[in-house]
């Protein structure tokens, strides 16, 4: 191809029927990708099997010591805990949701990240795993916590309830302020 041919390759007139051909090619609506909910962390809290998006769960750690905060500890705020050299408020989601935890007490805590630098520690009974969340959530079968949940989904081991993390953080903030 000569220099002049190369230069005129894109400047030539439109071939006959090109526009119609292109229109036919573009017309079919491509199937939209299925909505992805991303991965969720499954955990046990008392009798409840709950899930939270992994984007808000930074870590799981053993509960070593919760320092009580005068005048505050005892309700939703349990106290302060240390995590990787930081002091974090430790809150009881069980009390917030008004569910009883197991008698053995919380063995582990989840470190939840509301936003960068804004962490909360939340005692739980056990971490049950990480899954890709089902694309289609059903309505929560339990009438107990409807306003706390985004929905529920079936897993091999049973039904999990996906917590509405926005609402959870808002309620934790209000309950500890």
């Amino acid at each position: 191809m000569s220099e002049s041919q190369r230069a005129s390759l894109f400047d030539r007139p439109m071939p006959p029927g090109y526009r119609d051909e292109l229109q036919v090619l573009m017309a079919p609506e491509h199937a939209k990708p299925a909505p992805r909910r991303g991965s969720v962390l499954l955990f046990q809290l008392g009798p409840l099997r709950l899930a939270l998006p992994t984007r808000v769960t930074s870590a799981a750690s053993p509960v070593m010591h919760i320092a009580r905060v005068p005048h505050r500890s005892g309700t939703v705020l349990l106290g302060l805990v240390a995590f990787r050299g930081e002091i974090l408020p430790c809150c009881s989601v069980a009390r917030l949701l008004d569910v009883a935890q197991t008698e053995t007490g919380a063995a582990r805590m989840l470190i939840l990240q509301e936003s960068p630098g804004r962490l909360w520690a939340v005692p739980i009974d056990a971490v049950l795993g990480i899954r890709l969340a089902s694309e289609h959530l059903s309505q929560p079968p339990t009438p107990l916590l409807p306003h706390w949940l985004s929905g529920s989904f079936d897993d091999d081991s049973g039904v999990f309830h996906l917590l509405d993390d926005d609402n959870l953080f808002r309620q934790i903030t209000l309950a500890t302020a």
Partner: protein
Amino acid sequence: MSGSFEDSSLFDLFRMEAEEQVRALQTGLIQLEAGASSAATLEAMMRASHSLKGAARIVGLDLIVGLTHAMEDRFVAAQGGRALDSAEIDRMLRATDWLSELEAVAESNVALWLDSNAAAIDACAAGLHGHPSTSAQDTQAADPADAQTAEAAESVAPGSEEPPRIRPDTSPDRQPEKATVASPASMFVGKQDDEKSDRDIFSQQGQEERATRERTVRLTADRFDYLLSLSAEALVSARQLASWGDVLDRNHRAIGKALQLLEDAAESPQARSAVHGELERQVAVLATQIADLDQGTRANERTAERLYRAVLGGRLRPFHEGITGVARLVRDTSRELGKSVKLEILGENTQVDRDILDRLEAPISHLVTNAIDHGIELPAQRAAAGKPAEAHLRLHAGHENGRLVITVRDDGAGIDPEKIRERVIRRNLAPPETIPGLSEAELLEFLFLPGFSTRDTTSVLSGRGVGLNVVQSMVQEAGGAVTASSNLGTGTVFRLTLPVTRSVIRVIRILADGELFSVPMVRVDHVAYIEPEGDAEKPVVRWNDRMFPVIVLASILGLDVQPLPKRPVPLLFSGGFAFAVDRFVDQAELSVRRLDPRLGKIPGVSAASLDENGFPLLILDMDDLVQTAAGRPDLTATSSRGDWLAPHILVVDDSHTVREMERRLLVRSGYTVSTAQNGQEAWNLLRLKEYDLLISDVDMPQMNGIELVTRVRGNPRLARLPVIILSYKDRVEDRNRGLEAGADFYLTKGSFDNGTFLQAVVDLVGEAASAPPGDGN
């Protein structure tokens, strides 16, 4: 000036408020002009103007009310999207200059000052409202840019060789385009839906918190290199641990193998001998490893210590950097007062934490001014007393027992203890029977009370009794304490004891209700084991011939309380109280971390730390605990009125002038009053304590009055608490909003009247001096 508030110290409160708010306004305006402001800055400036307006109204400065009202309106308009241009920012800054000037005007000259500035201030207010000025003179005065141009034109004297300057054409079509400062409000366009705005509040809060945390510290390149080399040493030491782990692992496997051999061939003498030999070899290896580990641990500790000291050293600055203005202050003040003073500064290079250093100049300036004005005599008086005409004022900084100690010593007349005693009696600050027995040191403590002065007259410089109280507050905020000592005729010494750094403090660790807490050493007067005596409800202990009420620390911290045992108990003495604890644990040095701001102010707690095990540990705020103890009805004079206590009222307002005015009014009527600065602080108090009435402003930072009242009404325990809203907002819709939120009365500050206000209080909680409402007896 208004005659309704005769107490002149309200004007002092106005000054203090003006000083604080003017600083906020000036900082905010400069940020706005530089384009570095946020919606929060605009909000803060609007609130500052609003608070100033309220304070000015209380002291009857109508001219200032008008000016600050115009400023507030203009900030509100800016929040709505009408950006401030550079000329308006100039005008606002000029307004703050007037407020600063007014702070320095003696109360007796305020009327004169107002008269001489009235035209210009009115013109400025009109300009902010967007109205044209009424006269050319006003325009010039109100607009500094124009005023400067006019001055420049007029400054050319007749006959001068410089040609007269031509005033610029200011007709609208020739005016240069004004630089418009971006309105932060515009940043929120398109974010109007409720849910979104809720989230914005939270995210904005988070950003602000992070912004607060992200402060910068400058380091020299040498120090930085030193830190880097220490970090590298620490890294090498840490990696050595891994190799020790490998050796120990080999050791462990060899011992295991030997034991297995012993089990398999226990009867064989050769095998037993081989195992014995192997075990002896492994024991020798272990002994070497233990010795190496010991050496390595010590080296690690040394490296970590050096690293820590080096990092800490990065925060330290020489003392003289914090007192740059003191020499000038001494020169100007002594000249103004006709005194001759020689200033001597010792320990200029004493290392001080930069956070502490930043807070030193104001209290030291107060003390120096006080010394020259109050303590040092006029040259003639000094000569008559046999002293050199030139007084000696010595400022000394040094480290003592791990603390920074600063002394301000003058060789003036000293403080007459009898004069203090007389004031204490006159102001009824202590029971008459105890006053004669007060020691000189105890009498000097009264100097730090708000409004206490030994002077009969006030001056621009001192004598209002504000200074020493402010000095004490500032020093306490920096984690320190201030004491005074004096010899009549020979001089006075003020001694400031501060932590060398705010990052690390020495504490006593104690147990209360089984929980470990720490108490800053500087806040502990004594510790002792003493058996409490007296009434079980009001136990006391005797220490150094003085009786101290005993407060169980767990009880004041809201924890579970066990009865005091009938034996000596561990007691921490602080602020006139003996705090009983479960056990003294030890002393320690702790690195101080601020409490998570999401928790708000926690009563009795000042900060947090991590102990050597990495567990959180709270540092107690002894001043707060002492104040709470002093306010406990079982320990205060209110109990002398029998079983019934005066209704306890919580007053919430972000203006301390308004707050103080309401408090005084209510206290004079016999009520017990607590105060809070904003809705959030009030909400914390309401949840923790019992109140009979809430009186709240509407516009407040953090949580406004409407939100507060809504929360109160939504709380089962507080739902029936009587509430009065007292606000500047006087439109019908404002009133309806307050009443719909649940207020029992909605009063406006604009038409404030003592009688109406007190009647509303009486209607809701009854007279302070009578039985409570509903009590038929």
